[in-house]
């Protein structure tokens, strides 16, 4: 399917120059203008879901107002228009992660579905009794449970790479887990609960020495750093759109074409077939083989628009700004008596998990909410990480490039208030 730019809002504007202009970027995000409980919204729950810029909202509206129809199945004008926009978004994803071909980018509803697709398509076909699958101690449930289900079904064995107290994976332990029984490796690029950035490239190289395919969970990395799947040489890479400024229901699992070709389909239905009789069905070529039924067309087109948006800002400066917010917030919170930071890896994205002596994260979350501050309080769908640090839960502030130092000040002041209430 040929890719085409379908409207001017998808065109990249020139990168913004000089210093990071946070106020200008904030103006792109309408949701940030509101007040909560009478206070300006301080949105620090970006690792759970990020906000959507106006250009992405507009792109969805244009689709729904002018272009909506079902894709891949009509000779009429609107179906062609919708198909062009949808496949155009796939081309944008291809360039965003530097895939060799657009057909290696399978649209899914998020990282979770992407991982499940690989588990079903690859795992259920190729994993056998006694095989070993390696994951890491910092995975969230989406990259644990599918592999557990597979191990249970096949009689395979799940191995877990341990981590140190800072929240860094122990590379020596990983290397000693790898052996000729290892048949699949899956781990996260960035930890959602700790912020740790893993040395994925080196870890992929290690697995490839044993000829083992590697899946990278990119849910937390895609919004913060450039991704080059060819440079990483990963076999699969999954991420969600809604954590990178696109609507929910959008996302990608990338797979090397030769692997995707030999995998089983994920779901059966329309769009994933070449021909169907009651005797035999012939599956469609990539990527349609993995996209049964009508997909979330508007959301995936929104993902394309979010990629355009990211390309329109200076991502290096954005990342530097996020890093500075992390540094400043870490310094401010560490200075508060009783606060302990969970996740102190040398390489981190802008995720700040913390606990306070004798105060449960839910109580912290409720008090922060009263001041208009949105943080995540809980186990972050990563209960084994909580068990590793022997805590029931954490509070987590996660920053995007539209957050400000002043917001960090509000956070720090309110945490001081929390400590006071419970003193």
């Amino acid at each position, binding site marked *: 399917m040929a890719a085409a730019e379908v409207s001017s809002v998808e065109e990249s504007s020139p990168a913004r120059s000089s210093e990071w202009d946070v106020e200008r970027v904030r103006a792109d995000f309408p949701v940030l203008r509101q007040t909560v409980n009478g206070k300006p919204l301080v949105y620090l729950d970006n690792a759970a879901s990020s906000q959507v810029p106006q250009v992405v909202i507009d792109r969805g509206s244009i689709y729904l107002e002018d272009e909506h129809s079902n894709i891949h199945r009509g000779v009429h004008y609107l179906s062609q228009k919708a198909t062009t926009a949808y496949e155009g978004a796939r081309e944008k994803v291809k360039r965003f992660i530097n895939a060799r071909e657009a057909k290696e980018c399978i649209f899914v509803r998020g990282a979770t579905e992407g991982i499940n697709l690989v588990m079903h398509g690859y795992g259920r076909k190729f994993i056998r009794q006694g095989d070993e699958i390696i994951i890491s101690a910092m995975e969230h449930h989406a990259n644990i449970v599918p592999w557990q289900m597979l191990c249970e079904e096949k009689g395979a064995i799940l191995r877990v790479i341990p981590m140190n107290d800072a929240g860094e994976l122990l590379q020596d332990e990983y290397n000693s887990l790898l052996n000729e029984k290892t048949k699949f490796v899956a781990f996260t690029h960035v930890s959602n609960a700790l912020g740790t950035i893993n040395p994925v490239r080196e870890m992929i190289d290690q697995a490839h020495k044993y000829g083992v395919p590697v899946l990278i969970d990119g849910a937390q990395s895609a919004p913060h750093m450039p991704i080059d799947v060819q440079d990483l040489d990963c076999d699969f890479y999954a991420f969600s759109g809604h954590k990178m400024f696109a609507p929910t229901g959008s996302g990608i699992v990338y797979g090397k074409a030769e692997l995707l070709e030999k995998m089983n389909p994920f779901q059966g239905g329309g769009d994933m077939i070449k021909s169907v009789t009651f005797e035999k069905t012939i599956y469609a070529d990539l990527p349609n083989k993995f996209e049964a039924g009508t997909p979330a067309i508007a959301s995936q087109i929104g993902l394309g628009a979010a990629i355009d948006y990211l390309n329109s800002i200076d991502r290096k400066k954005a990342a530097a700004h996020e890093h500075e917010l992390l540094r400043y917030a870490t310094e401010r919170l560490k200075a508060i008596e009783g606060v302990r930071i969970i996740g102190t890896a040398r390489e981190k994205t802008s995720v700040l998990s913390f606990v306070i002596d*004798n105060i*449960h*994260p*839910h*109580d912290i979350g*409720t*008090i922060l909410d009263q001041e208009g501050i949105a943080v995540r*309080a809980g186990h972050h769908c990563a*209960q084994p990480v909580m068990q590793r640090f022997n805590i*029931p839960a954490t509070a987590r502030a996660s920053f995007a490039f539209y957050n400000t130092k002043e917001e960090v000040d509000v956070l720090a002041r309110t945490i001081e208030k929390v400590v006071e209430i419970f003193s």
Partner: protein
Amino acid sequence: MSELSELYQQVILDHNKKPRNFRKLETANHSAEGFNPLCGDQLTVYLNLEDDAVKEISFEGSGCAISKAAASMMTQAVKGKSKQEAERLFSEFHGMVTGELDEDTTANNLGNLKIFSGVREFPVRVKCASLPWHTMHAALNNQETTSTE
């Protein structure tokens, strides 16, 4: 901060700091474990039921201030009550925190448990307050686990 001070009253903060009957009950003949999958709160309620009356009750586990204080005050309220009275308190407490029962206009036996009425202004925290009660109810009825979901 008025709704907040309504939620985090001194009595609740005190029970959070020094929960009463916070231990495993060696003489328990009924117990149940309660989970709130949303936040990972977990507690076990132990009961010693004799002749359909709660002779002893205790709890242990981890949770937020609201769930801990609710559990602590529940053990005080339920101790010595008949099974039927304990179930009625559960239903009244549940009605109050979900806003179905107006504790000021409808006759009830809630007494000092009324300080939890502020919870209904915080919909996501209602389960924190009701989890211990759901768990006590499960223990009374011989269910081993319960969940707020």
